[in-house]
């Protein structure tokens, strides 16, 4: 019986233009937590019990014991890290394995990342407006994306089938930004 080999785009995609670099992050288990109507408080309690963290408010990501809780749309959040979320969570809402649904790209250099992504993302990602830990669901060009500010840059999460397009778009933006920087001064 042959083995199935996991595809690892994280080994393929990595590019660097000037001070910024773009890479694909490695596989991380991810589950979408969506409380049923009226179930938010109970799910939050279960979360606190299991991971010592509450349900994040819109635009917020929280980290705790080996897990990250990231707001992910209307009344839902992503749990990143654990292979199998605490069983108690299932009673209060939908827990869906989305580990393979999304791929995450990382663009490093906090101010460079904001400058590059300003070519693609219609929200203000400058660190002063979008500080480390902030997250937003928005667009990357024509691709739905979730962007999350990190201390060292911005993480961009897209649906897996879009990742090459997203990578290419960001790479192009990086090239243009670098091209501007290389113009002769007035």
């Amino acid at each position, binding site marked *: 019986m042959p083995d199935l080999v996991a595809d690892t785009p994280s080994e393929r995609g990595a590019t660097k233009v000037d001070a910024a670099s773009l890479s694909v992050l490695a596989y991380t288990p991810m589950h979408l937590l969506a409380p049923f109507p009226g179930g938010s408080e109970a799910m939050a309690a279960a979360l606190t019990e299991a991971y010592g963290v509450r349900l994040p408010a819109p635009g917020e990501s929280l980290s705790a014991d080996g897990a990250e809780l990231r707001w992910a749309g209307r009344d839902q959040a992503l749990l990143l890290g654990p292979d199998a979320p605490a069983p108690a969570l299932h009673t209060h809402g939908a827990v869906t394995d989305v580990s393979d649904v999304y791929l995450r790209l990382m663009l490093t250099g906090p101010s460079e990342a904001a400058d590059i992504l300003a070519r693609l993302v219609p929200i203000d990602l400058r660190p002063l407006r979008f500080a480390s830990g902030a997250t937003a669901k928005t*667009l990357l060009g024509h691709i739905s994306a979730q962007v999350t500010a990190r201390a060292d840059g911005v993480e961009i999460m897209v649906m897996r089938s879009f990742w090459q397009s997203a990578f290419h778009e960001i790479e192009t933006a990086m090239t243009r930004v670098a091209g501007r920087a290389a113009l002769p001064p007035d």
Partner: protein
Amino acid sequence: MRIDCPVCGPRDLREFTPKGAACYATRPEGEEWSEAWHEHLHLRENPAGRSEELWYHGAGCSAWLIVERDTRTHEIFSVRRADGGAA
């Protein structure tokens, strides 16, 4: 145009999709065709002024929103979640 999504905050028009009059959010009673259904699907007040509309924040949080807006000036007066939820 910018719409102040009650979940995400103010966002550019490009993240949203308008469906039409807010009546889409409320299905009429009855499983048989009726004047009420005709009105629901087809007839419109179509005001030149303040109107209530149903929008979808599809490229954001996926909330359906009731947007109160002026159709002459595009001024937006209020935005609330169609499911009645708070932010």
